């Protein structure tokens, strides 16, 4: 069997390319969130009056009590605090930045949940929990969450 394994004659490699045609719909709530980022540089959340929680990114129903929240819009601050973060060390064509870059969970002023986004303008080694950061908006729109380009240290 050992000789069989060393026999490269029976080893085949197939190169392939998987292409996935996708059609993403942001939904009514998601669309309003993105339009606000794009046109007004404002980050919107939704409030549940019953649970006294403000959610971002906004969602149609409260995840705790199922109350419909689509009319309870609140404008959040563009500044926030890092509650957790990670450093991305590998490069991949679909990732938004070249490695290394920092992905953080950021609690914006007025929100009870965190928004996950990129932190730039700082050495990854210097990022820490509790750090204050501020939103930087994209100059050119892509009609996506990336209209909020990144956060930078205050």
């Amino acid at each position, binding site marked *: *069997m050992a000789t*069989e*394994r060393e*026999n*490269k*004659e*029976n*080893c*085949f*490699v*197939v*190169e*392939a*390319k*998987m*292409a*996935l*045609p*996708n*059609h*993403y*719909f*942001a*939904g*009514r709530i*998601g*669309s*309003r969130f*993105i*339009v606000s980022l794009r046109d007004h540089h404002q980050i919107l959340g939704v409030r549940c009056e019953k649970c006294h929680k403000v959610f971002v990114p906004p969602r149609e129903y409260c995840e705790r009590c199922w109350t419909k929240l689509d009319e309870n819009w609140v404008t959040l601050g563009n500044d926030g605090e890092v509650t957790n973060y990670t450093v991305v060390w590998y490069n991949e*064509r*679909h990732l938004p930045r070249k490695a290394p870059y920092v992905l953080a969970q950021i609690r914006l002023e007025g929100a009870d949940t965190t928004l996950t986004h990129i932190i730039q303008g700082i050495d990854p080694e210097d990022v820490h929990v509790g750090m204050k950061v501020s939103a930087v908006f994209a100059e050119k729109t892509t*009609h*996506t969450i990336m209209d909020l380009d990144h956060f930078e240290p205050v």
Partner: protein
Amino acid sequence: MTMVQRKGVAETEELISLRCVNTIYQRFATGPVMGRWFSGFRERRFLANRCPRCGRTQIPPREICAQCRVRVEDFVEVGPKGEICEIDVYYYASPDPLTGKVRETPYATIYILLDGATEQETFAHRLRKEDIDKARKGDRVRPVWAEETKGRFKDLLYFELDR
């Protein structure tokens, strides 16, 4: 991006949708055992391997019997003809994982019990387009090969009804 006028909403509500094609480059390697299956294609032969304990044939061959967990070293030739055990006809235009191109529909996958293979060890491959409406479970099929066979995945084009 689409603009939608909703009932009872005075101003137009903008709804966002995006189309994009994500591509992933992939490399599949057979290793020497499954590779014997493809090397058999050069001579237009189907080489399964047979478990020394349970006698089950494996297509494509695996290094270990998936049921007995013992090493399998004996290869046996099966087919080239066989019997259709199941037919799946696809109307959804899914992308071909090797090229990324959207497949032409309808297309059919058949599960073939090649002659000499043990029961339940079927082999799945494409059925000839023109045979999709005619084929039934239990029908006999034969392989159709590329003009030149080099021991490649693409050597075996499809199966057609053996009538």
